[in-house]
């Protein structure tokens, strides 16, 4: 199966009758803006980690098209279960930079209210969110709602039993669920060919899921395919999987040293398929972009960067009491006693 591609690396547009998309100036500018903001935010977070303001950061660099193109194809009330690298998707849902950073600064385990954004907290245990999304979709199904559920995950996660149980379960139960895999070719140092012999979209078909392969660095293709598939699911067509082929341009995380396991030529090669440059080329060609717009977006990026730096140093941190009170609905006697003992000990220092 060839990946669906509407926008070539050089920025030339090839319409595909199977995946209709009205490529308006507004749409292109919207994608350009969202991807630019996401990249700038990612840059800034990286810098903050390097300055010691964040404990860890996992970059979305290079995966902006896969995330922006897909999440914008969903309805605002379609619940989303991300993995941990979906910063671009999160920003599209209105999650703030402060909410995105707090977990990585170590102030909290998660930063936002899933109900407010219809966007679940990040899941770090690989593939654990797939059964959650499947169950949530079972709920949607039982409610007779016309929402769909989307779950994001990476290529490496697909080797986990829980991922495959979910492919099977979702197909058997015919729940309104979209599996969205960002195949960025790497799981830390492990290349996709070590994870699997056959491509994921082929496996998905084997489970009885509708499956599609798309160029994950082509925001237009990702959007067109996700829009069509989402509506098909909403219409009762059953669960589907989209494999978006992209590339992890940075290390796995700020703790990683990709130089140990992959050579730069691969990186150079993928640089030529950059999702933003590609869209910009089209926009230049079509006259959808001018200096005024560039300045406008640059201004927004600068503002976001400034805000990101500012909020990072002021990120809220809860009182330690919260540790004891958020274990169960009610603090147990044992926890209350532990808290009192600890507070007494701390108090004793001052004397």
């Amino acid at each position: 199966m060839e990946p669906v591609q509407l926008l070539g690396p050089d920025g030339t547009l090839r319409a595909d009758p199977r995946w209709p998309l009205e490529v308006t100036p507004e749409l292109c500018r919207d994608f350009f803006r969202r991807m630019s903001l996401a990249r700038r935010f990612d840059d800034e977070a990286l810098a903050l980690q390097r300055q010691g303001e964040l404990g860890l950061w996992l970059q979305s660099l290079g995966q902006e098209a896969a995330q922006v193109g897909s999440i914008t194809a969903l309805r605002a009330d379609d619940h989303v279960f991300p993995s941990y690298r979906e910063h671009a998707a999160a920003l599209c849902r209105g999650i703030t930079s402060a909410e995105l950073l707090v977990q990585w600064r170590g102030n909290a385990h998660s930063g936002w209210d899933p109900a407010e954004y219809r966007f679940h907290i990040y899941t770090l245990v690989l593939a654990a969110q797939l059964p959650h999304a499947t169950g949530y979709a079972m709920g949607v199904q039982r409610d007779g709602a016309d929402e769909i559920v989307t779950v994001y995950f990476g290529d490496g996660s697909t080797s986990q039993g829980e991922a495959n149980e979910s492919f099977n379960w979702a197909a058997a139960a015919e729940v309104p669920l979209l599996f969205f895999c960002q195949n960025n070719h790497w799981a830390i140092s492990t290349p996709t060919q070590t994870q699997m012999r056959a491509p994921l979209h082929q496996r998905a078909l084997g489970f009885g899921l509708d499956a599609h392969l798309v160029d994950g660095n082509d925001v237009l293709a990702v959007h067109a395919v996700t829009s069509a598939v989402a509506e098909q699911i909403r219409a009762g067509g059953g669960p589907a999987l989209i494999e978006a082929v992209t590339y992890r341009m940075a290390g796995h995380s700020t703790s990683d040293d990709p130089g140990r396991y992959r050579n730069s030529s691969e990186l150079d090669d993928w640089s030529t398929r950059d999702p933003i440059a590609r869209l910009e080329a089209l926009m230049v060609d079509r006259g959808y972009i001018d200096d005024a717009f560039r300045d406008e977006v640059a201004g927004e990026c600068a503002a976001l960067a400034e805000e990101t730096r500012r909020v990072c140093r002021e990120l809220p941190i809860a009182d330690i009491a919260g540790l004891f009170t958020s274990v169960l609905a009610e603090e147990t006697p044992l926890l209350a006693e532990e808290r009192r003992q600890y507070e007494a000990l701390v108090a004793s220092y001052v004397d």
Partner: protein
Amino acid sequence: MPVLTLSHAINTGLRQAMEDDPKVVVMGQDVGRLGGVFRVTDGLQKDFGADRVIDTPLAEASIVGTAIGLALRGYRPVCEIQFDGFVYPAFSQIVAQLAKLRARSGGRLAVPVVVRIPVGGGIGAVEHHSESNEAYFAHTAGLRVVCCSGPQDAHWMVRQALAGDDPVIFYEPKRRYWSKAEVSDEPDLPLDRARVVRPGRDVTLLTYGGMVATCLQAAEAATEDGRDIEVVDLRTLSPLDMDTIARSVDKTGRCVVAHEAPTFAGLGAEVGAAVTERCFYRLEAPVLRVGGFNTPYPPAKFEDRYLPDLDRVLDAVDRSFAW
């Protein structure tokens, strides 16, 4: 007050919970058409439909994982794990997701999922069908772990578990599924309290689940030696009801804890350590533990010797007095 078997008492408890709250759904392997291998969910699918009593694919990790998703959507799932030895594939979903989601979300998310597990031995089963794994979940912060011992508690505890907002590991002693007793129209204890099932003066015998009946028999037998044993059914294994436990030990000065699980790092260790901290000066002897041997659960022909019986319980009581 109807007389029910423990199995049927849970069945009526689930039925009532489903009638009271349309968000309660039952799910698991063979819980629908068949009514579960122990018939605990018998008839529920017929009356509530296949959307609320769900025969699932054969995948424990996903049974718990999808239950979490359903709970996030506002449902109150009660999952059946067919046998104790088959909960392990769901371990990651239980300890890393179910138990932690409230804390991980800074208290924003509640995940009211009840995981029902037929537990323990005594039914002559093959391997993996007689395990007592409560210590794993008791050591996991974020879960409530409870174990019923008779019909009254079975009925009310499952309803209380489903009414609360915490994830609950709900143990059902399978060798007592067919034991009968009256079930009252009102709960007589909250979910987080232990119960003194036999008052006594001389020694406190702490136990739960399938061992409660055994310990009551031991207590009766001990009267012949003029010993008055107080038997406490822990009911809630995490958190423990230390007030009720300590009150008893402060009274008797001696304590034996008995369970089916291996003693090493078992729940009895926690009880023993905690009781010693609370009642140190009052203890005439160390808290003694009686449990399954520290081996994998044996073949059926050995289980009568593996499981603590009246003799082994009384032997521990004797050793406590001999100390």
